[in-house]
């Protein structure tokens, strides 16, 4: 057993865990934050995307102990109180989800995309940038629309933008 300390959705958590525990297991099983999903075992689908110190990571491919001391935001921590994050609202408004299983990862990836690429995202950019997330239900059509609209709305809401260093 190893001890990890993380800030998850603004709350400090410390736990003794088996060192092989993945971040997604830690979130789902130890913290019962089941909004983060597991859709594959090869780091391909993006159902597990969370923000680690503000950047999107696949929590299925991240050891919890490796991120000791970091700050994690999951889908449960995205809204501020009752007010949905603009990207959440955009997914609802544009029917960017059907079964909802890929949705938390999609939304977390989308927010990260806006942080990296700005508020004005064209279809091509969105489609290319979304290549780490699989959705089997929507055919992506409405996800693309939702992300474009969510990006604009984040700009209007004055959400801080973190342009990628690259």
């Amino acid at each position, binding site marked *: 057993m190893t001890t990890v300390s993380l800030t998850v959705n603004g709350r400090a958590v410390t736990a003794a865990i088996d060192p092989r525990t993945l971040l997604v297991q830690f979130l789902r099983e130890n913290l019962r934050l089941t909004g983060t999903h597991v859709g594959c075992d090869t780091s391909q689908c993006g159902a597990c995307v969370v923000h680690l110190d503000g950047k999107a990571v696949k929590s299925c491919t991240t050891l919890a102990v490796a991120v000791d001391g970091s700050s994690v935001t999951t889908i449960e921590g995205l809204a501020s109180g009752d007010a949905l994050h603009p990207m959440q609202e955009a997914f609802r408004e544009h029917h960017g989800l059907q079964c909802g299983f890929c949705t938390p990862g999609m939304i977390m990836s989308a927010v990260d995309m806006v942080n990296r690429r700005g508020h004005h995202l064209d279809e091509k950019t969105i489609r290319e940038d979304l290549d780490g997330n699989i959705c089997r239900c929507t*055919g992506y059509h409405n996800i693309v629309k939702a992300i474009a609209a969510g990006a604009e709305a984040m700009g209007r809401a004055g959400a801080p933008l973190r342009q990628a260093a690259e």
Partner: protein
Amino acid sequence: MSATGIGAAVRRKEDHRFITGQGRYTDDINRPGQVHAYFLRSPHAHAIIKAIDTEAAAGMPGVIGIFTGADLAADKIGGLICGWMIHNKDGTPMRAGPHPALAQGKVRYVGDHVAVVVAETLAEAKDAAEAIAVDYEELPAVVDTGTAAGAKTVIHDEAPDNTVFNWHLGDREAVEKAFRAASHVTKLDLVNNRLVPNAMEPRAAVGDYDAGEGVFTLYTTSQNPHVARLVLSAFIGIAPENKLRVIAPDVGGGFGSKIFIYAEETVCVWAAKKVGRPVKWTADRTEAFLSDAHGRDHVTHAELATDAEGRILGMRVKTTANLGAYLSTFSSSVPTYLYAPLLSGQYDIPAIYCEVDAVYTNTAPVDAYRGAGRPEATFVVERLIEVTARQLGKDPARFRMQNYIRRFPHQTPVIMMYDTGNYGASLKKALEMIDYKGLGKRKRDSARAGKLRGIGFSSYIEACGIAPSAAVGSLGAGVGLWESAEVRVNPIGTVEVLTGSHSHGQGHETTFAQLVSDRLGISIDNVSIIHGDTDKVQMGMGTYGSRSGAVGMSAIFKALDKVIAKGKKVAAHVLEADEADIDFADGHFAVKGTDRKLDFGSCALQAYVAHKFNGQELEPGLKEGAFYDPTNFTFPAGVHICEVEIDPQTGVTRIERWAAVDDFGNVINPMIVEGQVHGGIAQGVGQALLEGARYNADGQLVTASFMDYTMPRADDLPSFDVGMTVTPCPSNPLGIKGCGEAGAIASPPAVINAITDALGHEEIAMPATPQAVWRAARKSMNRMAAE
């Protein structure tokens, strides 16, 4: 139309929990004291199990129990069943081998279930499974669909030539005659590639046993929890139905793969009593690839006969369908009654004859996957039509228009009685949307850029709302395909609707509520839709085959009628009028020709307080149920046109344009319907361009992860132009035809027709990967150079 009624693009009620991470999927459920199951699976495609030694494994840390097929047999747990009996040409029943949940002496595909380890943690269960010693005697594997019947190796003794059935439909003699009279015959050899459904949520189960009550509960990823309970009770023998509760909570996509009753779910619920603890299992993605029922996998030879004017005279089709190593729940119906009756497509074809041989192979079971039989039929029809038009030198759109059915009802030669449609209208609209007139210029522009542009059509038809029950019963179905609904009105006029349909992405919590809101004139927020729990909903047949609108909502409609009728009785007493003089509209019961009225909520309260009427003459309360059995199939139909551009240097195909015009009858929520179309097209494009489950000669699945099996991603697809035409369905009260599968049915031939058009009619198999397209493009160019 009200803002939340029928026809409005109401935003989904269910979305809030999904976008905030509060969905409740099976793997999110944890029961107190829960332990974990891990299945030891066969590494061999075909082998005799000589011995299983679990002794070392049983002593490993955390292990609570290890069970094999012998333990299930000792508890008299029956095997998994196939619920549709098909008869051979000679009238004898199909030949099916047993399908034990845990292997009995033999394994028949890689991933077959050998034993289950139940342990405190999943890691401990996995570690222990590795310590189980299985003595296998390997047998040769039968893998190939086309040659399985002739193989020396026999998979099930009950099916000596690996053939489950030789089935046929249609009039062979009439077809022979049509072909003799033909001036042109088109012949095609087609493979409908094997697919893995890959709902993003892997299958999962939590079995729980309450020893005090003697009641089992199974939480599971199911599209039809009541059917699961029925099979687990009546056939597998877990417990009687009153002692078995099946809950299908939020389910992350199904596409058919979660209809079936599988080994893992069965074992988890049984093992919960065995070990006295709740038992949880969640598939990892590779397990899903190995053990979820796959889809398609047909090998077909098809011929179409036309006369000198280009009118279709007849069609003959010979298909071999791979059903895998065991017969999954509805497997036998897919290449038979869900396939051959659709071979008339949208065309007036006087004579059709179809033969289907279904074979066992050492591969995962094959069953319904989005469209189930209908995409296979549409692929045959639409490839034949397109190639015939080309061979006759006719414009493919005009050739279709020439042969469309124009008068309804139309009896096809293969069972179906099409009730209504307007195929020409859909085609015309789709041609406008894709700017067919501008195609020539676009082709020239592409050619100038060194690219090949092509267009492909698909005029599909599907049969949904599978029904009526007596009819499907006569065709071999083991169940009736009606649906149930119960409308419970609460004393203040809010409403709970209990439905036997199950939503796993379709948005029933919204569309069903729209219907109720529309009919009762109450706010959509005052309507809750309850589904997926056999303790709450009495009985239901679940969601598949695009049936929930046409059948599930019709049941709700029927129950609402009864609620309104009862409400009129109550209102008559309250308003002191004759029942015949009470009208119900816009949420009010009103006395004809007066201003006396009672709103729906007040009427509900009056029904429950029962002060204004004699409780002996009129029962208090406001709750009504209905079972709706359809009178016919419904026939959604439409036209999809795909335009591609191919780079002959790389073989990469880009879909440049997609126009879809569908006739789904009346539409409850266009936003949700369009979403269904988008998703269906994506799956069909996946089949046409990217996806293919491949077994090697030894029966190893070499495409068992997302690294090896290409799922469509956002940048593989365009945005789709989706339009609609409407001919209301005459056979159900809402005029709904169904929309869930259309995209997946329509799209594969549209894509392949477009690619072959771009390639100068060079044929290509699915998936048309860049490598395959590159090769075909070279062949085409060489051929054209030689000509």
